[in-house]
């Protein structure tokens, strides 16, 4: 522990922080960002966080154009987005993982289905067969349900193209293929869950933090055929197949120090308090080593340092 790392937070405390921090990006992260915003204002009464959450796709153009310095994304930036950012800003953006999430498949609570394989997911949602060649699934009977379920049609719900969930689902579950045109695209993850909860024949995908009383979470079968529910253990270990980190991208040149506002924000997000918000929102907090790595990457004092300096 260097003296600087101890002194810096204290220096920051000397003059009260003030200002407004604007963020653009993921709707999945929208709830988290607003909660972090509330807590940031509690820590620094003069600091405000403005959250615009219409989808991960909105973050890269906003970051590249300099419309915002912080962009929340529920998927990593693509090569093209990174290249655009580097072309405009001259340095790569810094991706800070802030939580873990899993793309979760939901069905109505009356649906007897319990698990799916990835090939079945593609056959349900895609027009193309880039991963596997399972024929298209149109009735619940094709997934092994019997009785009156066998002849019921499948209604599919998903997110709009701006969302990271959409892009990631497309890349991971459809191998980059195209969605069926009759997949309902709704402008919010909870809208997907709500729609699934209101239609008995529905299946939909969204982030982890959204289950309600009306839906059931499906397990996904891994390579060995073992069904895996998106539990905290399975997500942290990566045994659940559609696991993803949620990122907050920040426009930070390699030799530049994080400006005070951004610093306060990330200090909160990557703290036990910030990670408790993650758990409360139904996502999975970052495991200890990844949290420490993320703090190091931003040159934030390590967590032990924070507790020491605040107890001083």
């Amino acid at each position, binding site marked *: 522990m260097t003296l600087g790392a101890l002194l810096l937070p204290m220096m920051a405390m000397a003059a009260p922080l003030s200002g407004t921090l604007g963020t653009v990006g993921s709707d999945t992260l929208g709830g988290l960002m607003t909660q972090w915003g509330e807590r940031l204002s509690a820590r620094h009464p003069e600091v405000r966080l403005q959250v615009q959450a219409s*989808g991960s796709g909105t973050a890269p153009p906003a970051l590249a154009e300099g419309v915002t310095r912080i962009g929340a994304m529920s998927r990593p930036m693509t*090569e093209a987005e990174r290249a655009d950012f580097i072309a405009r800003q001259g340095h790569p953006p810094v991706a800070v993982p802030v939580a873990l999430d899993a793309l979760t498949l939901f069905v109505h609570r009356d649906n007897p289905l319990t698990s799916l394989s990835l090939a079945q997911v593609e056959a349900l949602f895609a027009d193309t067969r880039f991963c596997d060649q399972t024929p298209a699934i149109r009735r619940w009977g094709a997934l092994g349900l019997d009785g009156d379920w066998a002849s019921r049609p499948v209604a599919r719900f998903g997110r709009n193209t701006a969302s990271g969930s959409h892009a990631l689902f497309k890349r991971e579950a459809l191998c*980059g293929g195209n969605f069926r045109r009759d997949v*309902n695209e709704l402008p919010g993850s909870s809208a997907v869950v709500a729609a699934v909860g209101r239609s008995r024949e529905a299946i939909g995908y969204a982030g982890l933090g959204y289950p309600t009383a009306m839906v059931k979470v499906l397990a996904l079968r891994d390579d060995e055929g073992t069904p895996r529910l998106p539990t905290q253990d399975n997500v942290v270990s990566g045994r659940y197949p559609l696991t993803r980190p949620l990122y907050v991208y920040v426009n930070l040149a390699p030799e530049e120090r994080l400006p005070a506002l951004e610093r306060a924000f990330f200090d909160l997000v990557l703290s036990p308090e910030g990670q408790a918000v993650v758990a409360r929102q139904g996502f999975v907090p970052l495991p200890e080593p990844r949290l420490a790595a993320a703090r190091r990457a931003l040159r934030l004092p390590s967590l032990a340092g924070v507790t020491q300096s605040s107890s001083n």
Partner: protein
Amino acid sequence: MTEPSTAPPRPNRRLRQRLDRLATGVIAASGIGVVVAVLAIGVYLTLAVLPLFDGAEVDIDAAPSAADDGAIHAVWLADDGTRWLTRDGHLRDAEGEIATLTTDTTIASVAESGKTQPLALGLGNGEVRLVPRDDSGRLRWAQASTMRLFEARGVVALTLRHAAQGWVLAGRDTQGKVAALWHTGEATRRLLVPETAEHIALGHAGRLAMTQGTQLTLWQLSPDGGGKALARTETQAPVTALGFLQGGRTLIVGDAQGGLRRWRLSPDATGWQVAETSYTALGDAAIRRLIALPRQRLWLALDDSGRLGLYQSLSGQRWQGQAPEATPPPAVSINAQGTQVMWLDATGALQRLAIEAPHAAVSPATLWMPLTYEGHSDAQWRWAAAVTGDEEPQYSLVPLAWGTLKAAAWAMVFAVPLALGAAVHSACYMSRRQRARLKPAIELMEALPGVVIGFVAGLFVAPFVERHLAGTLALFVCVPLGSVACGWLWRMLSRRWGPRLPPISAGVGLMVPLALLCWAALSLSPWLEAWWFGGDLRAWMHQQWGWDYAQRNALIVGMAMGLAIIPTLYSLAEEALSGVPRPLAEGSLALGATRAQTLWRVQLPAAAPGILSAVMIGAGRAVGETMIVLMVTGNTPLMSPSLFEGLRSLAANLAIELPEAAVGGTHYRLLLLGALLLFVFTFVVNTLAEMVRWRLKRRYRRYGGDA
């Protein structure tokens, strides 16, 4: 009233007149301002959309070359300047040598795949040298590593592509033998393909295309070092150039007769199916080189006679010109945006190609025609914005225009009869006082925000109708029959008790019986389904007619949006009907016609133009309504006319996708094109409607009406 001015008029007469002129000027200017505002919207949208249809441009200029000998093999565009790679393994920039890559052999081939994968150099001794990149995509020449691909013979052709967690590369030696390396992050496996080839190209997920004469073979490599032939086919002429486009799913083949074709692999029931489409040829000389650019699935073709063409995989040829030198370049370097290509010609001169084709993926054909996209076996109209830049852009406006018109049409189906009926009722069957009470109610209805209607319809009505479909459909029969039955009952009652009944309008009086009727029909819904449709109307519809029922469908949109446009339609139609000069109707009644005869033969024909304009303005509103469609439909870009399937409208599409679109990009401008279409449509419809109304007013005035 107003007090007379007490000020003496004379002394400031000049001032007053000047003030008068000034005020008149200001007022007139703001009147003109309204016209300007309308024009400004149209002009802005047009200006923003026009660049979409600009032609592509390729500028070729000879860049200054530091080469003083013919030993330069390739040139690199780095972020901080240009680098030269000499055949004997030295890397230089404008100042001098940076690194020595090899000392004991020569560089025979180069391959690159994007700005995150390493650069591969094929050496004259059968080895491959890999130069890794850092976070920003800069090459780390000092950390290059070497791997062996062939025993001894030089690697004359090399192709590289990223794969899950690593990369794949394939090379061809001087005798046509083909070998591949698959790097998975932990291990690198080598694979020898048991066939010879003249040209090779690597596609997505280890798919290797090889040609020998007219024979085209597709191999599937696997990370464990295995491989199998997926498909074999004959081409029309001997293949002279080969290349996979960005994404690695579309193969471009150039042949000895100048033919350029696109090959797609798509899975079907029997396995893999290969389909081809041909492009406008450059000429009849053999194609020498195909260069895939990293954006928008653009590619360059160069033929033997030096003709150079820029193509896009779906919209076809975008530009054709002459290359400075006919001989194909040994190696090319492309920047990350795909806007600059550098190559060396045979004389050692450096050529820089600046490619200006920001919206190459858009052409009338891609907007309005069905196309066969990657992974599909038939031509379709598809709208799927390429958000991340890796996907194939699917930019057909047809499904959106279709959805817009479909939603508007179904809304009109619901709204027109109801609104016209209500207008007729209040114009012909209601007293002045009753009308005066109804109007504010309808105006309040007009003020209901779309977001409230949309939310109730989307989250409440849609699931309800799904559960009570039979009952809902039964309403369309029950309500008209029920209301006529009520009328009949009323007449029975009035015969019996006559004057003792309260004087009540049919419109208001029907509310309670109709509410009861609706409630009865909806609660009988499960029995209705059980009696006639085997318990499940939706399953029955599917079996009988093959109709699928989506929860978010045109029926709900029609009802919700119908409710939103009824007030507009009603007010305008009522205005037209009550504007019909009274003498006309009174004359008809005096001549012994019944109320209904007068309505159908006199009043409706006289008001027809006004009603038409009301319908047009209502349609204009329905086309542009955003929140209702956004919240009620599933935004599915389908092309089905079915009442029970979803849709995606231009307006809702704008609301969802515009905030996400990069400003100035193809997607952004296409969305603005959608807005322009909406603007033009409503402009034309409203102007026509206004002209109709104007003429009607003139006609009424002639007949002595009070409108």
